């Protein structure tokens, strides 16, 4: 036992040593060097940064910022207006560049660098020059992002629209158009864009998730529920899947439920588990049995509720017990306990709302550590 534990720790250390790292963006070093070699920040920018740090509350910050701008304007008028080096053509990179350099690649890279440096307006100018020179949808995408960052949501949307019209196959622009529309409250149009994305890439995770959000914004509960279910059909793990289940359950739909198996919350499809499609049910049972096989608890409890039909509830419970047992592959020390009720199940969601289900399946497995009074986590 001790040897086994030591081996595990050695393996773990080795895995940590070999944990793959992500590649930083290819242009990151260049972006940093651009910023390092750029002239020092202006006094106004420094004051702005200080204010941003000092006043996180927007109204107060805005008021102080306005006062500072008025003070700066007054000082400028008082001291004299001889400085005239920031006209319409004045560049974002101060005295180094006065505007796009007429090389699409260079403009694009400078634009991306400026975007990373937080100079949205200047970035948009360079990226626009790159887009107009090449008609490259990627240039357009980043120009739109820069416009969005500077708060020009309408112009951002227009660029996405222009891009999807000219390059219908370029999905990032369509996806981002969907996000823009959704954020702007035009959920119906967002829904259309997400549907177009999904027609080409049916498992695009963000589009699947946001389609449900669009349904919610539209107040279309059926559409929302169907979208959450489609999302969950393809995504069963991760925080967004847990959120999707919570949203679906909040609608009173318990097709998918989160089951506590050991320390894990495992998402299961209740309809399939209680349904008549034997192949689909077996797949679902195998998925949950696999989670139970690896969980620290020894007993999986299955509780079947079928309102007004105790006999069928018992039959269903026994059938599931058999299927789960088979799915466990005779794993030693694991047991399936069942119970059944000829009455509805009452479920309370996280928000405290109670739902009564004519058919319900409760599954849980208490972690071993909690059974003995201790807890590892």
């Amino acid at each position, binding site marked *: 036992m001790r040897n086994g534990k030591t081996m*595990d*720790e050695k393996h*773990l*250390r080795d*895995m*940590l*040593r070999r*944990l*793959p*790292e*992500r*590649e*930083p*963006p290819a242009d*990151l*070093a260049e*972006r*940093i*060097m651009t*910023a*390092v*070699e750029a002239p020092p920040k202006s006094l106004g920018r420094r004051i702005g940064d200080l204010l941003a740090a000092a006043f*996180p509350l927007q109204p107060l910050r805005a008021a102080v910022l306005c006062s500072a701008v008025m003070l700066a304007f007054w000082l400028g008028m008082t001291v004299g207006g001889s400085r005239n080096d920031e006209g319409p053509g004045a560049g974002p990179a101060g005295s180094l560049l006065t505007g796009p350099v007429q090389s699409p690649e260079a403009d694009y890279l400078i634009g991306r660098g400026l975007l*990373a*440096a937080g100079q949205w307006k200047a970035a948009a100018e360079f990226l626009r020059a790159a887009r107009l020179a090449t008609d490259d949808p990627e240039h357009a995408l980043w120009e739109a992002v820069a416009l969005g960052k500077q708060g020009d949501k309408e112009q951002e949307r227009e660029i996405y629209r222009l891009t999807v019209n000219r390059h219908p196959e370029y999905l990032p622009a369509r996806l981002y158009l969907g*996000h823009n529309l*959704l*954020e702007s409250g035009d959920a119906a149009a967002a829904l259309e864009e997400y549907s177009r994305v999904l027609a080409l890439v049916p498992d*695009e*995770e*963000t589009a699947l*998730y*946001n389609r449900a*959000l669009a349904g919610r*914004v539209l107040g279309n509960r059926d559409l929302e529920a169907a979208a959450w279910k489609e999302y969950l059909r393809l995504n069963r793990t991760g925080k*967004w899947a847990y*959120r999707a289940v919570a*949203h679906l359950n909040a609608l009173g739909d318990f097709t998918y439920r989160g089951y506590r198996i*050991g*320390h*894990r919350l495992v998402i299961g499809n209740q309809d399939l588990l209680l349904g008549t499609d034997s192949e689909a049910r077996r797949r679902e049972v195998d998925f949950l049995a696999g989670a139970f096989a*690896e*969980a*620290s608890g020894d007993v999986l409890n299955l509780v079947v509720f079928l309102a007004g039909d105790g006999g069928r509830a018992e039959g269903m419970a026994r059938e599931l017990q058999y299927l789960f047992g088979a799915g466990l592959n005779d794993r030693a020390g694991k047991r399936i306990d069942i119970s059944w009720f000829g009455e509805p199940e009452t479920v309370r969601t996280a928000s405290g709302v109670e739902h009564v289900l004519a058919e319900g399946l409760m599954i849980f497995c208490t972690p071993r550590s909690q059974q003995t009074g201790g807890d*590892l*986590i």
Partner: protein
Amino acid sequence: MEKSDEEIISLVLDGRKHEYRHLIHRYQRQIYNLMFRYSRSGQDAADLTQDVFLRAFEKLDGFEPGRAFFPWLYTLAVNRANDWSRNCKRRNAHRQELIDNTPERAERCSGQERMLEHREELERLQRGLDLLGNETREILMLRFHHELSVKEVAGIFAISESAVKMRTARGLQLLQSLLAEDK
């Protein structure tokens, strides 16, 4: 022959700013990955990495010769990541529900072929690391991934060496139990 960190710093401080590029190339991956572990977003990780290198550049004249550069840089990075994390929590509290519910753009897989089992094991490890506290996770990463000494790790987190040892042991134990759970 490659210049040492100290030689590069000396050149940068003498006005040869462009030499700083070598330090960026040498350490950007480590800092970017640290930031990614905190933010879980490629864009935020890149922005934070840039920020750390700019701060390091500004503070370079305060760097003590003879000291190792990487732990010094990592200290700056951990502090920046913690600040970001705190601000993020504050911002999140005020976010609208819709924005709060919008998932990040799905990370695309690298396309590298790996044995499925190996990949799943590493994914489990990553999930386990995500469940650890930020500081415990970084202590484990510094000790085993970056192979820093206990003393260096203690310096980065301003804790005693015995605290580093204790937290390393507890972190490993916790990670083991999380991995066993997540299989």
